[in-house]
């Protein structure tokens, strides 16, 4: 799953730690999200969407391999 979390965070001038605190996760988790090593579960994805006031699908984009069983 691709995402534009890093761009959204940097637009607001937040560090990874600051974003982590607002989402209630660790800085390491934010780093894993931004580098695509970890796809969030739905509750965290909704928290991210709410924080940036954007729909989930405008932040996370599935790759082709995610769209087929």
């Amino acid at each position: 799953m691709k995402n534009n979390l890093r761009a959204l965070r940097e637009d607001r001038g937040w560090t990874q730690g600051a974003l982590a605190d607002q989402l209630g996760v660790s800085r390491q988790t934010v780093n894993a999200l931004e580098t695509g090593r970890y796809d969030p579960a739905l509750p965290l994805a909704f928290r991210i969407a709410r924080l940036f006031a954007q729909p989930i699908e405008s932040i996370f984009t599935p790759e082709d391999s995610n769209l087929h069983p």
Partner: protein
Amino acid sequence: MTNKLDSSDRSEGDRARSRAYQLEFWPGILAYAVVLTGVLLWGDLEGDSPLRFLWAVLPVIPALWIVRAVLRHVGRIDDYQRVLLLQALGGGFAVAMIASVTMAFLEIAGLTVPGVGWIIYSAGMLGWIITGAVVGRQ
């Protein structure tokens, strides 16, 4: 690409979770060390008193406190941290199982290794630590 916003410092929440864990974990370790010292000094485990069995299992009580601290820590961390912890525990478990089976076969083959429990414990802990370090770096 990194910039000043990508500091690898821990966040305030990370520090708070770590503090809470340390505050619960270290008293357990301290109590374990105290009880273990008491067992070694006064337990007379190699004697013939029936009480020696009670002395031998006494360290389980502070060990349970440590287990409680770890479980509460698992409850505080997020899903990704739990995945990393699970992978590290899986690595430690696999190493402990392999060490255990290897020791059992060596014993069948006639080689009696003293302190086999401690060897398996050490192998498992080492496997946990090394796997944790590897998955944490990925």
